[in-house]
C-alpha cells in the first residue's frame, strides 16, 4: 500500500454539481422510448417492412411498363413470371403443368405478380391497393382517434353521471351487431371510400375510447393532476395538457392495433360486396376478388394476401414494440 502522507490530506467538498449526479439518462421520454423501440428486433423488422411496403406503394406501380387500370384483352389470367427467378423454376409463369406464357407465346412478357381476368397487371394493382389500404387505415384511424380519445377522456375524466350515460351509449352501440349498422350505412350512403370510413367511425373507436377511459381513470388519481387543480387549471387544460401527453403512449399503441383492424375491416366489407367502387381496389378488394378464383388462379389471392398479412404483421409487431417501449415498467431496458 502506498502510504504517502499527502494522500491523506483533507479535501474541500467538491462543488455541489458533482455531488448531485443526475440519475437516469438525460434523454427525454420520447427519445428514450424510441431507443427502447429500436432495441426490439421484431418491431424494427416491422418498421422496415412497412417502410418497404410504403415505398412500393409509392413507386411500385411506376416501375414496370404496365398500369393498374389498363385492360389487356390478351394477357388475361396469367400467373406470375419474374426474370431471373424463372430460371430457378419459381415464378416462371407456370400454373400447375401449364405455362400460358409459353403456350400462348408471350415469351417476352413478364408480369411479376401475374394478371387478372381483365388482363390488368397484378403487381400494379397490389401496390395501388396497398396505397388505398394505407389511406383507409390512416383516415379511419385518424377519425377513430379523435372520437375515441375525446369520448374516452370526457367519460373517464368527468366520471359520475356523465360517465354512466356515455358508457351506456357505448354498451348500446356495441350491443348492436356491427354488420347491421355498417351495412345500413353503406347502403344508405353510396358504397365507396367515404361510406367505408364513416362506417369504421361508427364503432371503430369504441375500443380506443375504452382504453383511453381506463387510462384516464388511472391517471386522474395521480397527484400531478391534483397539483394542476390546486394551481387553478381548468378541465380543458388538465385533459389536454396534463392527461393527454401521459396516455399518448397507450394511444399510439392502440392506434397501431387499430390500423390492422381497419384494413381488415375494409377487406371484410369488400368480401361481402360493400367495398370500394371499381376500378379502385384496395388489398381487401383484391383478396376478395382473388378469393373467388383461389383454386384456379391462386396468384390472384396469394400476392395481395401476402402483402396484407405482412402489413398487418408489421403493424402488429410495431404495436407490440411500441407497447414495450412506452411501458414505464420496462424502463432501463
Amino acid at each position: 500500500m502506498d502510504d504517502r502522507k499527502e494522500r491523506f490530506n483533507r479535501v474541500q467538498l467538491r462543488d455541489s454539481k458533482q455531488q448531485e449526479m443526475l440519475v437516469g439518462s438525460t434523454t427525454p421520454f420520447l427519445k428514450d422510448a424510441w431507443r427502447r423501440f429500436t432495441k426490439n428486433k421484431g418491431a424494427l423488422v416491422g418498421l422496415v417492412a412497412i417502410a418497404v411496403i410504403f415505398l412500393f406503394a409509392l413507386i411500385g406501380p411506376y416501375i414496370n411498363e404496365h398500369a393498374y387500370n389498363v385492360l389487356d384483352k390478351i394477357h388475361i389470367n396469367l400467373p406470375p413470371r419474374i426474370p431471373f427467378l424463372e430460371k430457378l423454376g419459381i415464378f416462371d409463369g407456370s400454373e400447375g403443368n401449364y405455362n400460358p406464357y409459353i403456350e400462348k407465346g408471350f415469351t417476352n412478357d413478364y408480369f411479376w405478380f401475374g394478371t387478372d381476368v381483365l388482363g390488368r397487371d397484378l403487381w400494379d394493382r397490389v401496390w395501388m391497393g396497398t396505397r388505398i389500404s394505407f389511406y383507409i387505415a390512416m383516415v379511419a384511424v385518424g377519425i377513430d382517434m379523435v372520437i375515441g380519445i375525446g369520448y374516452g377522456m370526457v367519460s373517464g375524466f368527468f366520471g359520475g353521471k356523465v360517465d354512466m350515460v356515455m358508457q351506456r351509449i357505448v354498451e348500446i352501440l356495441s350491443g348492436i351487431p356491427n354488420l347491421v349498422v355498417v351495412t345500413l350505412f353503406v347502403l344508405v350512403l353510396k358504397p365507396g371510400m367515404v361510406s367505408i370510413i364513416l362506417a369504421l367511425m361508427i364503432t371503430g373507436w369504441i375500443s380506443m375510447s375504452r382504453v383511453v377511459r381506463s387510462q384516464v381513470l388511472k391517471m386522474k388519481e395521480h397527484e400531478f393532476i391534483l397539483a394542476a387543480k390546486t394551481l387553478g387549471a381548468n378541465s380543458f387544460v388538465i385533459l389536454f395538457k396534463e392527461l393527454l401527453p401521459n396516455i399518448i403512449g397507450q394511444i399510439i399503441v392502440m392506434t397501431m392495433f387499430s390500423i390492422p383492424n381497419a384494413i381488415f375491416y375494409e377487406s371484410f366489407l369488400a368480401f361481402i360486396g360493400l367495398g370500394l367502387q371499381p376500378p379502385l381496389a384496395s388489398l381487401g378488394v383484391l383478396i376478395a376478388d382473388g378469393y373467388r378464383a383461389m383454386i384456379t388462379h391462386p396468384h390472384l389471392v396469394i400476392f395481395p394476401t401476402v402483402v396484407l398479412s405482412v402489413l398487418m404483421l408489421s403493424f402488429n409487431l410495431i404495436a407490440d414494440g411500441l407497447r414495450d417501449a412506452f411501458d414505464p415498467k420496462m424502463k432501463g431496458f
Partner: protein
Amino acid sequence: APAKEETEQVLRIAKDNDVSSLDTNVATDGLSFEVIKTFTEGLMEYDADGNIVPGVALDYEVSADGTVYTFNLRDDAKWSNGDPVTAADFVFSWRRLVDPALATEYSYMAEGIMIKNATAVIKGEKPLTELGVAALDATTFQVTLDAAVPYFIQLMTFPVFHPLNEAFVTAKGDAYAKSADALLSNGPWVVTEWTEGTKIRVEKNDTYWNADEISLDAIEFLIIKDYQTAALQFENGEVDMAKISADLVDRYKDEDFFETKKLGYTWYVAPNQLVAELQNENLRLALATSFDKSFITESILHDGSNVADYIVPIGLATGPDGKDFRDGAETFLSFDAAKALEYWNAAKAELGVETLTLELLVDDAADTKAVSEFLQTEWQTNLPGLTVTIQVQPKKNRLQLMRDGTYQLGLTRWGPDYADPFTYLGDLFQTGVNYNYGRFSDAEYDALVQSTAPGGALSTDAAARWAALHEAEAILLEQAGILPTWQSGEAMLVNPDVSGYEFHVVGQPSYRNVVKK
C-alpha cells in the same frame, strides 16, 4: 369421410342459394320452383326435347277464339296421401294464387295469361269464385281467358299453376308448406327432408302415376353457397352436379365433367332517357357499339354465355315456322369501334360538349363488377372524352334506383317468364311499363308490340305476329333504346355417370329422366 356405398340412385346437387318457399303459389325464386317441380306436376310438362307434353292433363281443347281451354285430367293421378288429383285441386290452387288475402307475388302471372276477372279478383273487387276457372267434373278443368294468349299452354308447366289438395292445405293451415311433413306430392318425388339452410331431400313417390319411368330414388339439393367449396365437393365425389362461377372455369374447362349451357337471360345496359344527354341517340349508339362483347363472354364469363347483338335470346321461342326466333334474324349494335367513334363525334357535336361523365350502376356480384370495369375502360378508350364512373350496389338497391329512374346507365338483365319474345319486347319496353327502367318510348314500337299482345290484332295470326315482333326488336335496338350485352350461360360440373338431365331455357330443369350409373 369416405364416400358412402351407394345402393340407391341418389342425385346430389350443390345449390348456391336456398329455397324461399315450397308453397307453389308463394314461391318466387328459381330453386324453389325447381324443387317444387320435383314433387308436383302441372297440367302440362316439358319433355326431353323441350316440347310441351301432357302432365296431369291427358289432353285439352281450346276454343276457336283461343279464350277457353278445357283440360281432361288423367284419372290415375294421385296425391301422395292417396287422394286423386282432381279438377277441383286446380280450381283451389288457382283461386288461392289470386286470393288478395294471401297476396302472392306471382299473382301477376294470372293477370299475364289474362284469366278472366283475374285483375279484379286480385284487387279484391270481385270474389274468388268469379275467377275464370271451373271444375266441370272431377277430371275436367276449364279456364276462361279474356283474350287469346299464344303462350298459355306453355305456362301450364309453371309451378304456380300446379294443383293443390284443398283438404290437406286447409288442414295444415298456417303450417302448410313450412316443413317436409306439411307438403303433399303429386309428382315423381316426395319431400322427405328439409333442413334449414342445408339440404332438401326428395324421395321417389310410389303413388305417382308414372313412377315406373322414374329412375332416381332420391335427389338431394345441398345448399353450398361458395362455388369453390361446391367444386371441391364435386371433385371429392360428394356432389354430382355443381354450378361454378366464371372464376373457376379455367380450372375445369378441359374436363369431361365440365358443361356449359345457355340460359334465357339477356343482360343489357339500360340508358336512362330521363338523363338529358342520354336522350341523344348518337350517344346511345356510340355507347352500344363501343365495347367488345366477345371479351365479356369469352374471357370474363366463359361459361357458355353468348354475345348479345339482340334482346330476345337464342333458344327462347320457336316460331310458327318451327325455327328459333333468332334463327336467321338480324343482329344489331355489334361491336365496331370505328363506327362508335363516328356516333360519338356526332353526339358530341349535337350535345355541344367535348367531354362527358356518365355513371354506370351495377350489382355487387363478382361478374357484373368485372364486366362494369371492362365496360368502363372500353368506353373510355373507344370514346375519348367520355368518363365513366361505376356505382356498385346490392341488387335490391340497384333495382330500386333503376325503377325510380335515379341512375344514368344501368346494367341489368331480364329472365323470361314464358317462351315467347313478348316476355322481352312486351313486358319490358313499352311506354310506361314497370320494367322500362330507361323510359324508352317509341310510338311505332308501342303499336307493334300492342298488336302482338294477347288479344291484340295479331294475337291469332302467328306468322304476322312473329314478323311484328322482329320489327319491334329492330326499332328498339336501332335507336339503341337499350344496349344489349350478353346472353347468360352457366358453367356446371356434372358427374359423367349422370345422364338424362334436362335443361330448359325457360322453366325449370327436369330430373325425370335422369339416370345415375
